[in-house]
């Protein structure tokens, strides 16, 4: 069935959700719903069985996403998503694992796990919803808050420069890295689909609107539309960015696919190719 055909009983993607948990807790205008939609379209297109997959969320708004999905889920500890995923993948390598993390979860408290998962090429899909602030806790500065932005903990503007998550992912060794934005659902779906289908550490950063906090404090507007427009105005497709000067790219987010490559995935810090007790001397 085509996804565009809306049957009488509602959205066909609802079958992938814990419907008794709806309505969800995301604020009106939040981008998380769009991310769920894109993710489920990718799942549908790839004919994945969520019952055999594990969804992981730490703490934060984005971290709630897997709680609404009808799949095994680990949830509720801030920043440790990839540590959980590492244990799962080393014990059951065939289980598909997808992590949903906000920018704080992924890059602040979980930053160390992130670079090491990338270095190891852990076979996990890491979807980072970057809404430029700590949203669930009330709109504090985060590692990807734009420089100068006013947040609840940077009332005079942020003096901290932000991370470029995608650049860091590539440098650290991730084998699929892409950045997109919620106002481009086709691209968002396409990148998530590629990531889910990728063998290795796949990272999709999604620039997303948080009208409740980032919009109101940093941009002076709680309108989702204004925030979506602001994000659009601050993105440049990679193809265009290649032809632009460094100063023109200042404060801009490049969107597109940064790397797609293959190398062996992580199976443990030391792997014995032929498990055999006889090789072991007496201790």
């Amino acid at each position, binding site marked *: 069935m085509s996804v565009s055909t809306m049957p009488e009983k509602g959205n066909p993607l609802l079958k992938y959700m*814990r419907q008794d*948990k709806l309505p969800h807790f995301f604020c009106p205008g939040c981008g998380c719903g769009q991310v769920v939609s894109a993710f489920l379209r990718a799942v549908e297109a790839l004919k994945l069985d*969520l*019952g*055999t*997959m*594990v969804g992981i969320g730490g703490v934060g708004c984005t971290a709630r996403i897997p*709680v609404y999905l*009808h*799949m*095994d*889920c*680990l*949830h*509720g*500890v801030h*920043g*440790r998503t*990839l*540590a*959980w*995923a*590492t*244990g*799962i993948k*080393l*014990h*059951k390598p065939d*289980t598909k694992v997808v992590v949903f993390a906000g920018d704080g979860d992924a890059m602040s408290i979980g930053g*160390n*796990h992130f670079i*090491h998962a990338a270095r190891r090429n852990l076979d996990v899909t890491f979807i980072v919803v970057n809404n430029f602030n700590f949203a669930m806790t009330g709109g504090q500065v985060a590692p990807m808050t734009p420089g100068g932005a006013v947040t609840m903990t940077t009332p005079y503007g942020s003096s901290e420069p932000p991370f470029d998550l995608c650049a860091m992912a590539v440098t650290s060794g991730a084998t699929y890295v892409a950045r997109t934005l919620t106002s481009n659902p086709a691209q968002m779906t396409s990148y998530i689909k590629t990531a889910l289908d990728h063998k290795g550490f796949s990272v999709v950063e999604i620039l997303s609107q948080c009208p409740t906090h980032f919009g109101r404090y940093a941009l002076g507007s709680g309108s989702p539309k204004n925030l979506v427009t602001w994000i659009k105005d601050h993105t440049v497709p990679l193809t265009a960015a290649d032809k632009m000067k460094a100063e023109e790219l200042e404060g801009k987010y490049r969107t597109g696919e940064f790397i797609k490559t293959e190398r062996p995935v992580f*199976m*443990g*810090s*030391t*792997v*014995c190719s032929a*498990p*055999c*007790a006889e*090789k*072991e001397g*007496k*201790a």
Partner: protein
Amino acid sequence: MKREERVLTGVHFMQGNYAAVEGAIAAGCDFFAGYPITPANEVSEGMARRLPAVGGAFLQGEDELCSIYAAAGASLAGAKAMTATASAGFDYMQEGIEYAVAVEAPMVIVDVMRCRGENFATQADIMQVRWSAAGDHEMIVLAPSTVQETFDFTVRAFNLAEEYRTPVIVISEMSLALMRERLEIPEASAIPVVNRRRTTKSPSEYLPFKADSEYGVPDFAELGTGYRVIHSINPHDERGDIEWDPKAFERLYKRITGKVRENRKKIATTQRFHLDDAEIALVGYGSEVRPALDAALSARDKGIKVGVLKIDVPWPFPEEAVAEVASGVRTMVTVEMNIGKYAGEIERVVCGRCRTARATKNLGEPHTPEEILTVIEEVRS
């Protein structure tokens, strides 16, 4: 791989840390994650060599947080998982322990207690292993006194973790961890192995956090097998759904703590030495039992009837065993390598049944038998 091939049956002269490794392998451990820290490194090093060779996975985490959460993830995926660390590293693991308690993920944590920087012996973490994870819980903590017990108790720790679906801690000590002693590893068939009970229900009938009794242990369904369970540290109902209702919270934590507390007589074993006619009982755990036993024998040479109550499992607290011994002696002396922490719990339970005293030492060195004998002579006079 067959169990017999995993188990190093025979007599060895082995270091305490390696005994923990062999105990884990014998118990069926198939996942280990750890971060380098002295004096627990030999556990990681031993696991790195042994585990991949018997078909398990070894991870050197980027930190202790990675290690404990990787163990939790592997456990929920069905593994018998373990991590090992030393006091400072154990600090970092508390939230992971809290998570494992909340989602009832079995795992074994070896904490080699250390003080004065890295390499000195202590029992200073005895209260930390019980309470330092946030939230309500009853920890199971085993305290070996010898290399042989390090092996035996590690096996038992895995079995208790599986039976009660909870993290179990083995506290070692710098001295014990790096000591070499005789270790006899029995035939594989003589080593009991417990496996968590898997659900036989279909996904539609299965309730992941419902047990068959008020203080029971739920059946397990491993990740990725169609059961679609939420394993959240947040309060959850019997279905695993996040539930903020205080009644659901109360029911959950009553069961999670009760499954350990109500079974404490079975879990919290003790050993009695020379207590039948004793007027003074020394009570201790871990390596301190060794000088205590020597001191008891020296006291008996001097005509003072001293016995020893050896606490194998400090937590859950063996209340009944302590109370029974206290009822039969004039004085109970807690022997402890810290400023006197477990002593407080002993004295709470003794509660006037006899007099109490403490032999405590917090210098990074175990007691000598003579030091304990001095305390014995003081309390007797």
